[in-house]
């Protein structure tokens, strides 16, 4: 009897959690499958006749394809470059001895906590003198900068625990440091690399403030910025808005579901020092 009570007492918090997390998502998806009349009738019930009309309307909106493409280019480029630059720097910090190593690594934590809005005006002046405002490159460069400190921190902590004997063996086989980095270290570091990619992709795909300020022309906007515009345009047709939100959510959800089994392991290695 006591065990049954104990089991229920433990399930309860998790059931409440699942309910609280899923209801807003249910609200988004279920209403994207309704007609506007059905939504106004009841925002909670299942649609009596589910339809993809709202998705058709959202997708045929002249901008959505362009917005989606801009987001893909920005997120993929910035995450790829960050992973490359970050892994190189982290490898040097973890496995080479040189002056300034400690200082460089210690700087990463303060850089992580600098509020991005603080740097926005000077960054804007810099980008506009380089003629990059309204070009995706401006946002890509800033995202790389903002993602690097966390990436370097995480990967360096992972690489540090990498056995030196393996590197020695590779060196004896005539591998240059670059070759052993590419052929030995990176393949074994998959959990940490995938964790960095997930966290960074989620950040880059979802970021609003910087994209809002730097990409003001309609053709260069990202999907997330576009949604805030989309919202006022479709405030009278909520199912279309909900369809737009769902479309914006699917890519990050896929990245997360694909990598989630690495996430706990990667964070374990990287954040716990």
């Amino acid at each position: 009897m006591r065990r049954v009570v104990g089991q229920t007492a433990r399930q309860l918090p998790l059931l409440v959690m699942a309910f609280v997390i899923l209801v807003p998502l249910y609200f988004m998806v279920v209403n994207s499958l309704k007609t506007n009349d059905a939504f106004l009738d009841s925002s909670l019930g299942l649609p009596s006749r589910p339809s993809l009309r709202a998705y058709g309307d959202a997708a045929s909106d002249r901008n959505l394809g362009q917005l989606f493409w801009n987001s893909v280019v920005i997120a993929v480029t910035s995450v790829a470059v960050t992973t490359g630059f970050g892994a190189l720097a982290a490898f040097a910090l973890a496995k080479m001895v040189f002056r300034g190593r400690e200082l460089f690594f210690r700087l990463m934590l303060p850089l992580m906590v600098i509020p991005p809005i603080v740097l926005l005006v000077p960054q804007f002046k810099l980008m506009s003198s380089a003629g990059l405002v309204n070009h995706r490159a401006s946002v890509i460069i800033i995202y790389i900068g903002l993602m690097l400190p966390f990436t370097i921190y995480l990967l360096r902590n992972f690489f540090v625990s990498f056995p030196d004997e393996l590197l020695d063996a590779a060196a004896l086989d005539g591998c240059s440091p670059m070759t052993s980095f590419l052929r030995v270290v990176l393949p074994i570091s998959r959990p940490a690399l995938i964790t960095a990619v997930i966290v960074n992709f989620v950040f880059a795909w979802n970021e609003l403030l910087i994209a809002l300020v730097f990409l003001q022309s309609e053709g260069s906007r990202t999907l997330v910025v576009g949604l805030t515009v989309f919202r006022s345009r479709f405030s009278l047709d909520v199912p279309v808005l909900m369809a737009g939100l769902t479309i914006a959510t699917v890519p990050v959800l896929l990245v997360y579901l694909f990598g989630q089994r690495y996430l706990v392991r990667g964070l374990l290695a990287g954040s716990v020092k």
Partner: protein
Amino acid sequence: MAAPVVTATAGTPRRAGAGRSGAVVRPYLYLAPATIVLVVVFGYPVLRLLVESVTVPGILGETGHGLDNFRSVIDDPILRRALLNNLRLFLAVPVMTVVAVLLATLLHERIAGWRFYQSIVFVPYVLAIPVVGIIFSYVLQRHGLLNQSLGALGLDPLVHDWLGSSQLAIWSVWVVIVWQQVGFGVVLFLARLSSLDPGLIEAAMVDRAGWWRRFRHVVLPHLAPIIEFFVTLSLINMLSWVFNYVYVMTGGGPARSTYVTELVIYQQAFRDGLPNLAAAVSVILLVLATVLLSAQSLVRRRIERMES
């Protein structure tokens, strides 16, 4: 290409590529790409920010230098209200921490259905804040899902205009932030718990220690360093990463009741065209974030000294 390392002594830090004349330069070459980006994105803008904050534009176009910008922003009642709102958001941190520790502990015990729970707990964290903000705007508005449900359950006294009341709006934003960020804590704590020696729990079980005592004496001490990390990170988030929530859900309203410091900077810089005032507020925000970070390292050093 590189000469093999023949003089590798065990126990010394590895010098990848030692023995080659380029070895001194190599680490710096590896750091160069990251360093260049960091200088462009952080280094130059921080210096420029400091200069702007003490630059006072004069009436006839000549500029002076001094602390006038700081004097005028400190007297600004909007900034005070914004800072107060950031302080209110700080109160979310203990709540998130307790909830996240509890959920992570339950998940770590491999409770029935843990796989399912564990994969959804992180989902809110991966959603875009505008997506979350827009959904919750519809849930929380006067005739929204929450009020409809409360009405249907006969709980009419609980029906409120969650985002339209200047007393309640900041607390509604508060709840949405907790909703989205608690999962990050759960995953961090789970990661830490996975390195907990199962023998310790078993030993406690053999001693017939109840759940609470096991939690108090085995689980909690093991989590302590990560709790400290999560609390610091969350406090800094509440100070300097909440712009998106406010911008999407309330825009600072109603009646400017949900302004946060970042929104003040954004509006001064990009709406009111007062970059020097924005720079002064930015420096204040930067100082506050630094204070939080150094407080954390002070606490950590004291803990380490007590332990040794």
